């Protein structure tokens, strides 16, 4: 471990980035969402369980290799492993892994998924902020409904690779792709969903930290897949209202109503 640390100390001295420890480097990006901690927690829980069981695997491999090498243990114990006791132990191991790890994480993950990530906010009851996303090779198009609250109209705010969102509101995305399959990936919110030509996929998120973050495409989409980057700016409420008003103003002036490319949006698909 010390050797590794030394190696990394050297490597980043060369790369010129600021010096942080290996442990800090291994951390996932800052979590800016209300629900991302559920995923981080489940990851940590699974890791703890894995370390626990893998410890026994290693104990078996290295311990038995040490104790029962031909030198130390010249006469092997003759057994087929079909005694009642043997079968019992093997079954107990199988079931303990299944119950302690698998059933637990399946239950937790299922609860999280059904109650949070796939449980979209009710658009009639709640104040939901809606954004349409269209992926294309190799850029992200975003569309806000504008002052009339209806998508694909003259007053829509349209941005390219520049997504600005408010803190605290539930945000629902409807996502589509123009050409090939992309994947809308918010590393800071621990979420991604594919953008597929011909079908609308959805994602919802609630953010809680203002700042500047990255949006990436996670699905191979061609040569410049790695360049399909967009910027996420998260504002607190006042700043967002200010930006939205400004963007609305310039959209109403600048939108070229004769350009058919302006109308790539669609009627918002209300579900529930």
């Amino acid at each position, binding site marked *: 471990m010390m050797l590794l640390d030394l190696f*990394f100390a050297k490597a980043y001295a060369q790369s010129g*980035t600021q010096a*942080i420890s290996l442990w*800090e*480097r*291994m*951390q*996932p990006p800052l979590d800016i969402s209300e629900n991302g901690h*559920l*995923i981080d927690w*489940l*990851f940590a829980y*699974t890791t703890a369980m*894995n370390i626990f069981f*893998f410890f026994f*695997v290693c104990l*078996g491999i290295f311990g*038995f*290799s040490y104790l*029962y*090498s*031909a030198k130390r243990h010249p*006469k092997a*114990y*003759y*057994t*087929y*492993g079909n005694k009642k006791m*043997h*079968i019992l132990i*093997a079954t107990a*191991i199988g079931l303990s*892994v*299944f119950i302690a*790890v*698998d059933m637990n994480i*399946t239950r937790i*993950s*299922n609860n999280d998924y059904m109650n949070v*990530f*796939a449980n979209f906010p009710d658009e009639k009851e709640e104040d939901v902020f809606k954004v349409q996303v269209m992926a294309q*090779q190799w850029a992200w198009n975003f569309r806000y409904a504008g002052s009339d609250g209806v998508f694909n109209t003259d007053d829509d705010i349209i941005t390219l690779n520049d997504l600005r969102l408010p803190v605290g509101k539930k945000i629902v995305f409807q996502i*589509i792709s*123009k*050409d*090939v399959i992309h994947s809308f990936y918010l590393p800071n919110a621990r979420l*991604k969903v*594919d953008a*597929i*030509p*011909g*079908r609308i996929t*959805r994602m919802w998120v609630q953010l809680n930290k203002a700042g500047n973050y*990255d949006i990436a495409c*996670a699905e*191979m989409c061609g040569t*410049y*897949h*790695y360049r399909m*980057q967009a910027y996420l700016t998260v504002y607190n409420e006042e700043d967002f209202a200010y930006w939205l008003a400004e963007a609305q103003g310039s959209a109403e002036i600048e939108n070229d109503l004769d350009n058919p490319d302006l109308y790539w949006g669609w009627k918002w698909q209300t579900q529930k």
Partner: protein
Amino acid sequence: MAFFEQHIHDKPTTFLSKYIISYDHKVIAKQFLWYGIAFLGLGGMMAIMIRWALAYPGVPFPVIGQFMFPATDGVIPPDTYAMLFTMHGTIMIFYAITPILIGCFGNFCIPLMIGARDMVFPTANMLSFWFAVLSAAILVFSLFTPLGAAAGGWTSYPTLSTFIGSPGVGQTLWCLAIFVLGASSTMGAVNYITTIITLRAPGMGYFDMPLTIWGLWLTAILNAIFLPVLGAGVLLLIFDRVFGTTFFLAGAAATSGSGDPVLFQHVFWIFGHPEVYILILPAWGIVSDLLSFFARKPAFGAKATALAMTSITVLSTLVYGHHMFTTQMSPLLTQTFMTLTMTISIPSAIFFANWLGTIWKGSIRFTSPMLFSLGVVFVFGLGGLTGLYLGTVTTDLYLHDTYFVVGHFHYTMAASVLLGGFAGIYFWMPKMFGSLMNEFWAKVHFWITMFGLNGVFFGMMIVGYGGMHRRLYNPFVYDYLQNLIPINTFITMSAIVMGAGQIIFVINFVHAVFFKDEDVGDNPWEVGTLEWTVPSPTPHYNFKEIPVVKCGPHEFGNPALPEGRDFQFQTEEIAKA
């Protein structure tokens, strides 16, 4: 239980009939081995180039870079990078691991270990190899077409793989190569299944077969069922590309059509998930046997291991949806696939317990095949456990299509299978070529490979958890990935060390095959399965007399055996005190 006489044919005499158009399962096995090793080298070279681009973006690739990419002054360009990882995946899976684990060991071990003179269908066997050569020729040819080879990833999802994303002829040739290879593997699979069912030596029940044969048998069954599915999928893709159909095209602005790109993902992963088990099952079988052979102790719960492998085979066909969580399937399907995926851990844990039970209280000889087998237990433990994160839907939302996935599937499909394959090569070397490889260099090779691959694949899981997504030419255009630069450099260095370590293997192997003249005896490892009852290297028609099997394959350490002997052949009555 032979249904028909197995005649002894004349030995082929001409060079052509002996080495090229050979019907002999042993020669075909060796052909597949050379073919696989050659592609392993090519695929490995591509891996090093991929790693180079990731660790040192914008730096010319050393030595050969100037010749290969003169236009960019030796720097790997992004479109070539996409071809590299596409070809790396395709070559490693279909042209390196499949021929070595299934083509070579399947052909070599099945008749010898079940006491048969050859495969049931020698002609189909020969055709299976030559179809594989044809397929490889198409794939290699595609590298030299204008616009280059396929570059949509080895999964080649439409619509990227249709003419919208890949206009070049390379992608069509890729589909064609996979289709031809599917035909080759299906022929082989049908042959294996039939041979195992009909040609087992008299007295050999299914549970008297070595576990290697169990693994190969289950693999062949999966192959025969699911490769045609992939064949159908790529055929439809060829239709979309060449004849203008729209199976996988759907109607946004740039594409139009009444199909569905997600359909291909279903077709692909119905095949693709079993494919993982197609690759790993032979390695599991080999490891289960070798652990018992070198612990000098019967395989612990051999029947349970065989049944656990069988239930995994069945389950593997029911879980493919976990590859598609982010396409937003119906939540009911998501729940179903998640739960089914998790049940795989029961049989896996059982045979893991059995592997450890096999070496428990054994008398372990640390030969090179044994070291590699223990290595498989270690890396497959890591690979299997990290699958849990990807099988649970919420963690998969974050980790899907990141390097965590890459690390995970390399642990299961590359590390375990590669180590299992090496174990097999070291072990059956005397029976194949009549000589043993140098033990010292074999062990050096093991430790370099072991450290190298853990550095590479564990590092990949770390950067994946750090959020780095897959198939990036230059990940460092993203702010949040800046921290991962030194870890990526470390991975690349591990990969280079590991790649260089394989040179030891190649030299050792070539030396043992061509330049070593020694008499290793019929049974250098002191093992009792049927192939060790015949001379090394194996004579033209294997068994002069078809053997009669009287006991199981793992009879070691029976206290009733005479002094100085701790194993017995399968042809001997079980020793009783």
